[in-house]
C-alpha cells in the first residue's frame, strides 16, 4: 500500500481511474498480491471443505428466506390453507406457518427443500472432509488445533441440524424431541430439572420451539461462522497440505496459485454445488411435514428416525436392551430426599458411544504424537496405506458409526430385506462389538498388502503379460519399469519402526514409557519397509537387458 501512494501511474481509461481510486484507498492490489499467490495443491479429495463452506453459505441464504415467513410460536391455531388432508386441523402456529411456506409462499417449498438438502450435504461434506484429513494424516503438527476446531464445527453442525429439524413442530420432529427429553431425564438426579428448565415445564410445553429457533438461527450459526473464520485463517497460516510426489517436501507446496485458476474454479464450484442442491430440492421431496401432521404427544409413525447425522445416537438407543442377563438396567434408588430412577438403559446408549467417538476424535492427534514422539512439522500427507494402523483405526470408527446408523433404520432393513426385526437387532448388537475389530484387522491387512504390492512394483515393475522366448529357449515375462516420477510415489514414504521404551535421566524406563513402547509396537510392528535405493539398484540390474526396449509403456506427465 505504501508503494502505491507514491506511484505516478496515470490510468488511461475511465475504468482504470475508478479502480485506481479505490485501490489507493483500500489497498486491494496488496490483498490480491498476498492471497492471489497462495498456492493450492490439486487433488479431488481436498475439495470437501469447500463443499461444506458452500453448502453453509446456501444454508444461510435459504434460511434467511425462511425466517421471513416462519413464526416460531407454539400458540394454537387452526389450519385453513390449501392442503386438504389437514384442513381444519388444530396445530401450532409454527407448523401452520411451515405449511404456509410450503403451499402458499411462492417458491417456499423449493426453498425449504433447498435448506434441508443443503443441511444434509453440509453435514455429509464435513464428515467426508474430516475423514480425508484423518486418513491422510493432515491433522499432524502444525495442524492439531485446526483439527480440534474442525471437531467443534462438526458438533456445531450436528446441533444446528437437530435444532432446525425440530422447528416445524410436526409429528416426526416432535417424536425426536421426546427422545431428547427422555435422554435428558435419564441423567441421574438433575435430569428432570434440566428437562423442565429446557422445555419450560413438562414436555412439550409451549416454549421449546421459540428457544430452539433462537439457537438455530442466531447462536449456533454465529458460532459456526466464528469457527469457520478461525479454521480458514489457520489454513492460510499453515498453508495447504499436499500428497507426496516428486519435488514435494515439507518446506514447499506444489500447485496452482489461488488467482486466477483457483478463484475461477472455486467460484464455479460454488455454483455446481448450488446446482446439485437446487436439482435435488426441485426433484426430490425432503421432510414432507404434511405427511407427518402436527405434533401430538400420543401418536408415533412407523419409520421414525432422525436425520442421518443424529441417526447413530438413535441407533444406540435401539440396540440397548432393557434387561441384560436377567438383570434390569433401570433401578429406583432411595436417596435421602426421595427415590430417584437410574435409567442405564437410556443413559448408557445415549452418552457412551458418542462420548467414545468424540473423545477419540479430539485427542487422536496427541495420542499419535505421544506414541511416535514425532515433533516435526508435516506438510506432505501420508497415503492411507502407508499408515496402516491409523487407517485401520479410522475404518473401525467408520464401521462403528455405520453399525449404529444401520441400527437406527433397523425397522426399514427388516421390511425391505424381509428379515426379522429381532434378528436385525441381534446381528447389529454383535456387529457393534465385533464390526470395528474385524474392520480394524481387515483394513490393516489390506493396507499392508497394498504396501507390499507397491514394493513389488517399485522393485520389479509391472507385469505386462508379454512372454518373450530367449535365444537359449527360456521364457520370461517382460516387466515394464515405472518411470521415476511414478516410482517416487511408491518409495518416498516414512515407515516408523516400533520403539523400545527410552530410559529417563535416572536410567529407569518408566511405566508410562513401557505403555508407550507397547502402543508403538501395536502401531508399527507390522510394517513394510520402503524400498531403499540399494534394493532398487539391485532389483533393476536383474531385468535391465529385457526391459530396455519397453519404453512405450512409460507414461509421462
Amino acid at each position: 500500500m505504501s508503494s502505491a501512494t507514491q506511484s505516478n501511474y496515470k490510468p488511461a481509461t475511465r475504468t482504470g481511474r475508478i479502480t485506481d481510486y479505490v485501490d489507493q484507498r483500500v489497498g486491494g492490489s496488496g490483498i490480491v498480491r498476498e492471497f492471489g499467490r497462495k498456492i493450492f495443491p490439486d487433488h479431488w479429495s481436498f475439495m470437501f471443505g469447500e463443499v461444506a463452506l458452500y453448502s453453509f453459505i446456501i444454508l444461510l441464504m435459504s434460511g434467511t428466506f425462511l425466517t421471513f415467513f416462519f413464526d416460531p410460536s407454539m400458540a394454537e391455531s387452526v389450519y385453513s390453507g390449501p392442503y386438504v388432508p389437514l384442513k381444519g386441523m388444530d396445530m401450532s402456529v409454527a407448523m401452520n406457518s411451515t405449511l404456509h411456506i410450503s403451499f402458499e409462499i411462492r417458491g417456499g417449498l423449493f426453498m425449504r427443500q433447498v435448506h434441508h438438502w443443503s443441511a444434509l450435504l453440509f453435514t455429509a461434506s464435513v464428515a467426508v472432509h474430516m475423514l480425508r484429513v484423518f486418513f491422510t494424516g493432515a491433522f499432524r503438527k502444525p495442524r492439531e488445533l485446526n483439527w480440534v476446531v474442525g471437531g467443534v464445527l462438526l458438533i456445531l453442525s450436528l446441533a444446528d441440524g437437530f435444532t432446525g429439524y425440530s422447528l416445524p413442530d410436526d409429528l416426526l420432529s416432535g417424536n425426536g424431541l421426546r427422545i431428547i427429553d427422555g435422554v435428558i431425564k435419564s441423567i441421574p438426579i438433575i435430569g428432570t430439572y434440566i428437562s423442565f428448565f429446557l422445555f419450560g415445564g413438562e414436555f412439550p410445553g409451549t416454549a421449546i420451539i421459540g428457544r430452539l429457533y433462537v439457537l438455530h438461527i442466531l447462536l449456533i450459526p454465529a458460532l459456526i461462522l466464528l469457527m469457520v473464520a478461525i479454521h480458514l485463517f489457520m489454513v492460510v497460516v499453515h498453508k495447504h497440505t499436499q500428497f507426496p510426489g516428486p519435488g514435494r517436501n515439507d518446506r514447499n507446496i506444489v500447485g496452482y496459485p489461488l488467482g486466477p485458476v483457483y478463484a475461477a474454479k472455486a467460484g464455479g464450484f460454488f455454483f455446481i454445488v448450488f446446482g446439485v442442491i437446487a436439482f435435488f430440492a426441485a426433484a426430490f421431496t425432503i421432510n414432507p411435514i404434511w405427511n407427518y401432521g402436527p405434533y401430538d404427544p400420543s401418536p408415533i409413525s412407523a419409520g421414525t428416525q432422525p436425520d442421518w447425522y443424529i441417526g447413530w445416537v438413535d441407533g444406540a438407543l435401539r440396540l440397548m436392551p432393557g434387561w441384560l442377563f436377567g438383570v434390569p438396567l433401570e433401578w429406583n434408588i432411595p436417596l435421602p430426599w426421595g427415590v430417584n430412577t437410574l435409567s442405564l438403559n437410556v443413559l448408557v446408549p445415549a452418552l457412551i458411544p458418542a462420548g467414545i467417538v468424540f473423545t477419540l476424535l479430539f485427542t487422536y492427534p496427541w495420542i499419535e504424537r505421544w506414541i511416535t514422539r514425532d515433533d516435526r512439522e508435516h506438510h506432505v500427507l501420508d497415503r492411507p496405506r502407508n499408515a496402516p494402523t491409523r487407517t485401520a483405526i479410522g475404518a473401525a470408527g467408520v464401521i462403528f458409526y455405520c453399525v449404529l446408523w444401520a441400527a437406527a433404520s433397523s425397522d426399514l432393513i427388516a421390511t425391505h430385506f424381509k428379515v426379522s426385526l429381532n434378528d436385525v437387532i441381534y446381528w447389529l448388537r454383535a456387529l457393534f462389538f465385533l464390526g470395528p475389530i474385524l474392520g480394524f484387522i481387515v483394513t490393516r491387512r489390506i493396507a499392508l498388502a497394498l504396501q507390499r504390492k507397491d514394493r513389488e512394483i517399485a522393485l520389479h515393475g509391472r507385469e505386462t503379460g508379454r512372454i518373450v522366448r530367449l535365444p537359449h529357449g527360456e521364457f520370461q515375462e517382460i516387466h515394464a519399469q515405472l518411470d521415476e516420477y511414478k516410482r517416487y510415489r511408491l518409495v518416498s514414504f516414512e515407515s516408523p519402526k516400533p520403539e523400545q521404551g527410552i530410559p529417563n535421566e535416572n536410567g529407569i524406563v518408566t511405566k508410562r514409557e513401557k505403555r508407550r513402547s507397547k502402543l508403538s509396537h501395536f502401531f508399527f510392528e507390522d510394517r513394510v519397509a520402503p524400498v531403499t535405493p540399494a534394493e532398487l539398484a539391485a532389483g533393476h540390474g536383474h531385468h535391465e537387458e529385457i526391459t530396455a526396449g519397453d519404453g512405450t509403456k512409460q507414461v509421462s506427465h
Partner: protein
Amino acid sequence: MKALSRKRRHPLAAVALLVMGLMLTGGLYAVVTTVNEAKADTTTYSSEQVNQGEKLFVANCATCHGLGASGSDNGPSLVGVGAAAVDFQVGTGRMPMQMQGPQAEQKPVQFTDSQTSQLAAYVASLGAGPAIPDARYLDGKGDATLGGELFRVNCAMCHNAAAAGGALTRGKFAPALAGVSNQHIYEAMVTGPQNMPVFNDANIPPQNKRDIITFLNTIESQGSPGGAQLGSLGPVSEGLFMWIAGIGIIIVFTIWLTSRTS
C-alpha cells in the same frame, strides 16, 4: 316403598340383588359386544351360495382350517369370523396361504369374485361375524382431516404416517396401503387380519372408518407436492440419497475440476 323397606332384610334379598346385578352387567356386556356384529345380518346369501362355498371350502381350505371350519393345529377356527374376513383374506390373495410363515403374504388372487363371495357365504353361515361393509362407508367422501388424525393416532405407528408400511416383531410387518381397495381397508379394520388389532364399531364408528378411507384415498391420489418421495420412508432414505447420489455427484465434479489436461 313401605313394602320394599319391610322386605329388605329378607334372607333372599341379597341373592335377589346379586342376580339382578349380574343380569344387568351381563345384558349390558351382551349389548356392547354385539355392536360390532350388528351388521352381520344385513347381507343375506342364498343357500345355493352357501352350498357352493362349502364345496370350495372343503377342497381348498379344510386342510388347515378343518372340516366345518372348526380349526386344526395348522389354522384357526373360522366360526364367527364373518364374511368380511373371508372377503379380505381371499380377496387380497392372502388365503389360501402359500406356506406357513410369520404372516400370510399377499399374492395373486386365487378365486373369482363369485367364488370368493360363495366362500364368504359359507363362513358367514357358520356363525355371526362382521359382514361385507355397506357401500355408503366406502365412497371416500368423508372428512379427510379427521380421517388423517384418526389414522395418525390409531394406524401410523405400524403403517407409517404416509401409509408406507412398517416392521413388526419377528418378521411380521404392516403393509403399505397404497393400492388397497376401500372395501379391503374397511374389512381389515373390522376383522384385524394377521397381526392387526380389531378396530370394532365401538372403537372407531363406521362413519370414522369412512373418514380414514377418505384420508387414504386423498393422500394416494394427490401425489407428492415436493417431488419424488424416495419411498416415503423419511430421513433414512433421505440420508442415503444424499450420501450416494449427492456426495457421488459432487465427487464426480471434484475429480473433473482437479483433473489436468495433459
